[in-house]
């Protein structure tokens, strides 16, 4: 069961509208290594995990990723808020605008819709947790790439937080993997 809290996990600030940056940032909303992929991957893998630790961790990190999804949406929303048609055209994003104005949507910066092909749940706990660790590294790398694309100190601060959370999540998944490997070994002893 999910319950919503009417507040962001952290304050989100942008210094100035930036249509181009919004269009790039959307990769962490609906792109392959974004927060939707992370949330959906963890929240669906958890059903076939064998231990309370992995079920709990996937539920909790998956839920936090939904909060991060909201942060990205807020960043995109604020970056587009107040942008004029001239600014949108100048950024070459009138194609986007024609389809959906300033709406936030699940797609990559090049327009591919989000797909479950970005994620996997194999039902094999060891394989699944390795995928989760890889996912966190990919997200971390993408945040670093995005931070290099902007000079907006406020925006960078928000992206920095999201990057740091990926590092912590990676750490937690590593610990869960160790525990899982012990569990699997113990089960083999008859």
């Amino acid at each position, binding site marked *: 069961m999910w*319950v919503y809290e009417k507040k962001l996990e952290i304050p989100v600030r942008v210094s100035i509208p930036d249509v181009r940056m919004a269009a790039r940032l959307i990769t962490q909303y609906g792109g392959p290594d974004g927060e939707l992929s992370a949330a959906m991957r963890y929240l669906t893998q958890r059903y076939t995990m064998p231990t309370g630790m992995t079920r709990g961790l996937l539920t909790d990190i998956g839920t936090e990723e939904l909060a991060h999804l909201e942060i990205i949406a807020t960043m995109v929303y604020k970056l587009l808020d107040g942008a004029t048609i001239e600014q949108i055209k100048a950024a070459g994003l009138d194609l986007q605008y024609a389809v959906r104005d300033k709406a936030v949507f699940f797609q990559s910066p090049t327009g591919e819709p989000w797909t479950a092909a970005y994620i996997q749940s194999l039902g094999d706990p060891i394989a699944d947790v390795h995928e989760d660790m890889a996912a966190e590294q990919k997200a971390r790398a993408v945040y670093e790439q995005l931070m290099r694309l902007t000079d907006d100190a406020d925006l960078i601060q928000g992206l920095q937080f999201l990057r740091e959370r990926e590092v*912590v999540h990676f750490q937690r998944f590593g*610990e869960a993997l160790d525990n899982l490997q012990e569990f699997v070994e113990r089960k083999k002893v008859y």
Partner: protein
Amino acid sequence: MTIPPEQMALLRRIQETQFVAVDLNLYLDTHPDDQKALCDYNGASLQLQALMQEYEQCYGPLMHFGQEASRLPWAWIEDPWPWDIRY
């Protein structure tokens, strides 16, 4: 949309306290026997509950689906929504 400084200050304290709880929650998921972390978590939890109660009484509900009571008119649908707040 801006909110009054006192509301912002309380909201910031809630975000900070809750973040401590979230981070400790994840840590405890993989370190279930860590006494110190557990104490810190429970401390943050109590503090968070008090802060949220204060916020709700002054500024309206932060949670839906029965987590908090409301006055009339139904306050949940009122502004500001999180993505509108100017920090």
